[in-house]
């Protein structure tokens, strides 16, 4: 008689794997990648290619030769996700070598110094982005007229948040700046708002977000708590002084808000495990973002807010646990 396998239960496994979850995130980012390439052309394609390739190569080299691990995490798409997210966080004009440095910091410092996949405290793509933002501010805020692939007219110039921040410093009011610069919500929702690639189309990002929710890759509580906090905080300020403070819809649709809240703050590794912890995490991100946008020196605060709240995750995990069956 043939030999029988004997092992403890359960004897079957769900089809999901780390690789399939990460692949779903890549799929969810495809609409945003397509829109950015259509609007920004081959330069955006170059940024994407350099970022993703650098992340993959660095992940392989570091795990193989520095950490001396045979079991490589290259095939699990996690480095590819970091690469795409980093690229979507950069202006399409970023030179290739700056992109490479960003990828090196993201994977090398943000991820591998902590021990690789699952161990990092901070979102690797954001570590890369923020490093570039403080080290190469000129490249990171440099805007030029896009050379579109399909002749689509894209808006050049600084981001809406940048326009407002600059304008307010010069003594203008918010409604006046919005009108003067032709800023409207339809534009922000669908496409063609100046900024980094991932900021140009809220709809493309939201399609990806819905895909992740439907596939049950992520749960919505973190994203929703960020949106709710941003809406409430900006509503209070806007109602008090509409000349000085931007309105809730503006804040929800601009900057890295959608990209950050849907794809970066919901990163498994760097967000709390429990729903309660996740909601507090989201409230923190929303609040810090609004404080930076209204009172900080940077026009945009999403990256800093997420990184700051990443640091609180171990504590949130210790303090907040899910409800257990039959226990108070």
């Amino acid at each position: 008689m043939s030999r029988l396998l004997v092992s403890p239960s359960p004897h079957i496994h769900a089809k999901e794997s780390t690789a399939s979850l990460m692949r779903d995130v890549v799929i969810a980012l495809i609409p945003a990648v397509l829109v950015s390439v259509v609007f920004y052309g081959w330069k955006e394609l170059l940024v994407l290619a350099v970022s993703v390739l650098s992340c993959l190569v660095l992940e392989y080299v570091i795990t193989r030769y520095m950490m001396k691990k045979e079991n490589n995490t290259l095939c699990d798409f996690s480095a590819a996700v970091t690469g795409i997210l980093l690229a979507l966080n950069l202006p399409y004009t970023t030179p290739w070598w700056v992109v490479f440095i960003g990828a090196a910091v993201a994977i090398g410092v943000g991820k591998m110094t902590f021990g690789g996949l699952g161990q990092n405290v901070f979102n690797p793509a954001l570590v890369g982005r923020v490093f570039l933002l403080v080290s190469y501010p000129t490249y990171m805020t440099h805007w030029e007229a896009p050379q579109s692939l399909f002749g689509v007219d894209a808006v050049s110039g600084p981001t809406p948040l940048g326009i407002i921040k600059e304008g307010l410093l010069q003594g203008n009011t918010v409604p006046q700046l919005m009108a003067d610069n032709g800023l409207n919500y339809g534009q922000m929702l669908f496409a063609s708002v100046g900024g980094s690639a991932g900021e140009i189309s809220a709809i493309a990002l939201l399609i990806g977000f819905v895909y992740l929710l439907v596939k049950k890759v992520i749960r919505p509580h973190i994203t929703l708590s960020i949106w709710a906090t941003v809406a409430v905080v900006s509503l209070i300020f806007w109602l008090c002084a509409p000349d000085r403070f931007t309105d809730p819809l503006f804040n929800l649709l601009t900057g890295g808000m959608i990209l950050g809240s849907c794809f970066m703050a919901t990163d498994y590794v760097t967000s709390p495990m429990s729903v309660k912890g996740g909601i507090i995490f989201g409230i923190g991100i929303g609040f810090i973002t609004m404080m930076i946008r209204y009172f900080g020196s940077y026009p945009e605060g999403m990256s800093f807010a997420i990184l700051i709240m990443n640091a609180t995750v171990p504590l949130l995990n210790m303090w907040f646990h899910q409800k257990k069956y039959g226990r108070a």
Partner: protein
Amino acid sequence: MTRTFSMGGVHPSDSKISRGCAIEVLPTPPTVYIQLSQHIGAPAKPLVAVGDSVKVGQPIAEPGGFVSAYIHSSVSGKVKSIAPRKDLAGNNQMCIEITVEGDEWMEGIDTSDTLITDIIDDNKAILDKIRLGGVVGLGGATFPTHVKLSPPPGKKCEMLIINGCECEPYLTSDFRTLLEKGEQVVVGTAIIKQVLGVDKATIGIEDNKPEAIAHINEVLASLRKVSPKFEGIEVMSLMKKYPEGGEKQLIDAVMGRQVASGGLPIDVGAVVQNVATALAVYDAVQKNKPIIDNSVTVTGECFPRQANLLVRVGTPLSYIVDYLGGMPADAAKVISGGPMMGRAIANMDAATLKGTSALLFLTEKQTRREPEGPCIRCGKCAQACPMGLEPFLLNRLARAGKVEELEDNAVQDCIECGCCLYSCPAHIPLLDIIRPAKGQVIGLIRARKAAQAAK
């Protein structure tokens, strides 16, 4: 929204490929091996000696303690040996070996198909019949039923729940029992309800078995016209979700109450019995027929013939397999029970027990475990845990040997349903790590209680 339990759970494909297979009687094997320990509690003590002639339904072993059960001969013939024999896990267990001669039943056992709906009023006599019939819980735990039906003084049962969920993938024997012996199950339910002195009984059935739900509702409607003893029994359709049939989950789903950690269902006023147990109670009380056979699902995509068989207790597994066409070449694992909580069989010469509900054949591809990757902290294990535990944390604590923190994080509440390991995308063997840690913590809690009692 259909009702279900409030936290966790997973949705594996239900794979009930044998659902169309009516229960058929397996021919009696030439020899049966009846294990003396086939229930939770003390092993039974033999009442027969080598060389004795026995009849079908004759008690051959008596309870070896308060929590124990009678065991009956499932065949007629001669006792050939009483000796240790390897069980399905490969461990030695005392077995009574009986060589089959004819099929002669004990006097007083009603072998006809006539449905008896009259229930005697003497609860003590009923409990006695259940005890003498060797009835144990057939939902998996094989806890002696008469003990469970005698709640400790001061505890009041408010609801009897009959577990017809059969939430494990592949298994269909309870489903077929509901369809083919629904009347008997309902009468058995009414008997248990009467013994417990409760007004309400709920038969919980998952909504992937609509035929069973419809059939039991019809049976209830017709039986209510016969006797008021069938009032108060309801069918409840429950969402298909594993582990709906877990005792604690079922109580949560049906009553919206949760059994406190370390407590018993009766603490929240519930008693749960399986469909097959209700049928066994009917047989024991109405027909004087002890548990001598039970229905077993034999299934698996790689298995040549799907079947639900009525099998005499003590039938060698290899006899069942040969009857249905032999062992498939690509079967890598044979499981006694379902794929989530069943036990892998090491020895096909082992014999069936009262509580054997299924033989499942899986190929290597179906049961393969991928190599373990790093935890990506997705929290899917915690979302899947029906006890609200955090397996990722328990895994870490268990590997670090932090026993006190394991207890603080309620590892002892784990019901070993397997949802965490099933859903982990990094293929971390969570339950494999948590199971021994749970044993360790439970040992610690017992030792502490014993030390306190000694003071």
